[in-house]
């Protein structure tokens, strides 16, 4: 996984609440057996007409947001299915950070596995960032994971919380499986105990 470097980029506003994973990547695009190439279909039904032409007023089709790297979103972002195709599509589009008042649990976890930083902030602070994002491409925000700070285009600094282990993995670009396999002896010990106490499993 790529390391999460300090990010400076355009933030796109999507204030709609309950943006679900079917909106993020509709199921017709889940039929690939690869992990890449989903970016062009990110938010497909909101972004394109049935004939494939772009819907002009959708935020990521507006010239100032076409290269957005940050998304400021409404409450409960990523609810619904467990499809990792949702963060794959977000990452493939080029978005590396999503800010909201809350995220659905599975989506939240999936982000970290794909180098995306999901940030949870209180409503008032999301409102500040949403207003900043509304300013368009001149409003570049900075996300500093190491310092756990977002700096708005006006220079306001907003602190955020992140799980220490997940932060470490993002900063270092660490692969989970490799780390877990270092604890293989614990897994083996557990399995030996269980074969005695719960042999039916």
């Amino acid at each position: 996984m790529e390391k999460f470097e300090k990010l400076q980029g355009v933030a796109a506003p999507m204030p709609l609440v309950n943006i679900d994973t079917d909106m993020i990547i509709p199921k017709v695009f889940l039929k690939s057996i690869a992990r890449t190439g989903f970016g062009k279909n990110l938010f497909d039904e909101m972004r394109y007409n049935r004939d494939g032409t772009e819907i002009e007023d959708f935020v990521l089709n507006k010239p100032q947001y076409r290269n957005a790297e940050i998304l400021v979103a409404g409450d409960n972002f990523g609810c619904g299915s467990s499809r990792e195709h949702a963060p794959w599509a977000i990452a493939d589009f080029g978005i590396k950070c999503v800010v909201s008042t809350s995220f659905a649990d599975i989506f939240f976890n999936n982000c970290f596995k794909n180098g995306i930083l999901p940030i949870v902030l209180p409503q008032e602070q999301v409102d500040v960032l949403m207003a900043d994002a509304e300013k368009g491409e001149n409003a570049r925000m900075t996300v500093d994971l190491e310092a756990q700070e977002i700096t708005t285009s006006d220079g306001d600094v907003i602190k955020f919380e992140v799980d220490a282990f997940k932060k470490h993995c993002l900063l270092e670009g660490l692969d989970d499986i490799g780390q877990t396999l270092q604890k293989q002896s614990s897994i083996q010990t557990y399995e030996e105990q269980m074969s005695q106490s719960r042999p039916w499993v």
Partner: protein
Amino acid sequence: MSPKTLYDKIWDAHVAHEAEDGTCLLYIDRHLVHEVTSPQAFEGLRMAGRKVHAPDKTIAVPDHNVPTTAGREDPAQMTAESRIQVEALDKNAREFGVHYYPVSDVRQGIVHIVGPENGWTLPGMTVVCGDSHTATHGAFGALAHGIGTSEVEHVLATQTLIQKKSKNMKVEITGKLKPGVTAKDITLAVIGETGTGGGTGYVIEYCGEAIRDLSMEGRMTVCNMAIEGGARAGLIAPDQTTFDYCNGRTHAPKGAQWEAALTWWKTLYTDEGAHFDKVVTLRGEDIEPVVTWGTSPEDVLPITGIVPAPEDFEGGKVEAARRSIEYMGLTPGQKLSDIEIDTVFIGSCTNGRIEDMRAVAEVVKGKKIKEGIRAMIVPGSGLVRAQAEEEGLAEIFEAAGFEWRLAGCSMCLAMNPDQLAENERCASTSNRNFEGRQGYKGRTHLVSPAMAAAAALTGKLTDVRELM
């Protein structure tokens, strides 16, 4: 020792390693696998030269892409992309040596119906699958939840997940349900109460007399939609109903091992005085047969209600409701029971079990569906289908005018040929009414199987109690 919740007990029994910051390696007892979220995970193993750590605890079955019409062995019934995913699962299951039910096997079906039915899912287990509706298995008092594809690969490689513990939430349904009210109405009513984000960060334990009174099928319906309320998992403490369901199933323990298992399973309940971080209580008597009017599972109202107006809501929900009402082609103030439908879909991991089939048969027996309505019943597995045929239910369905299909996810998510057309309106027993979920611009109203059956007879959303 301080009192523990059911979730605490199952969690504690599965921690294989705990780091200082509370990050745990949680051991996984059963890993269910389907064709949509697994190909990239198996490919990852292959590229790293890794094996499946515990193939005996891994069960694979194709369900999402599989057509549900006769002659589906013919590959021409699937799109090339669907076929590639189904064939990839077939190849991966055989190469990595996991348990596998191919399309041709009578036990094939929706992964969350296949697991319990064959005795893979048992009380006190940890169960995961690359599918959010894994919450279903919580009905057995198993800690069960969906995971992403990276985590599928992690479980395949290590049989563990890196997890931090969630908080405890209790959802109590007191008293008795009124006639015509079912498990589906309970689970929708709870989401209507808590919202789709109300369970975020929690594992829910459902309890109370109305939950105890449910069959295993009904309990699975309730837990299935825990995820729609945002919870990591839903749980119901195992009891005699659970043990009776498990006893004798193919992969359930037998003899002395059954007795040993039973002894442990009987300790799986929340201790008196255990702490819950959040509690929601509903009176069973207050729950009505419900329908959804919008495009979020929290958009729930009794069938006797009216379509709300955006101004009835607050904050971000005003815009979301405006968008939903427009998408659904409805008018605020319209009676829900006046909404005419085009299609009825009965099936899915929420309501594709034998008891759901029986509930439909009870409503439609000796009657005909409304002319012009497309109505299909899709059993959740080949075994459900066989049992429904043995009980004479299939004949009732066909005489009433329903299509009686083969097992699969079907129109619940329309990754297969079963889809809604643009603006087609469906009374559906599935779990999600999201925009485009059942087909591009399709309109979904979530209901119980009995309510779906009633809608098929009248051609509009209908209070099933009027037909009883």
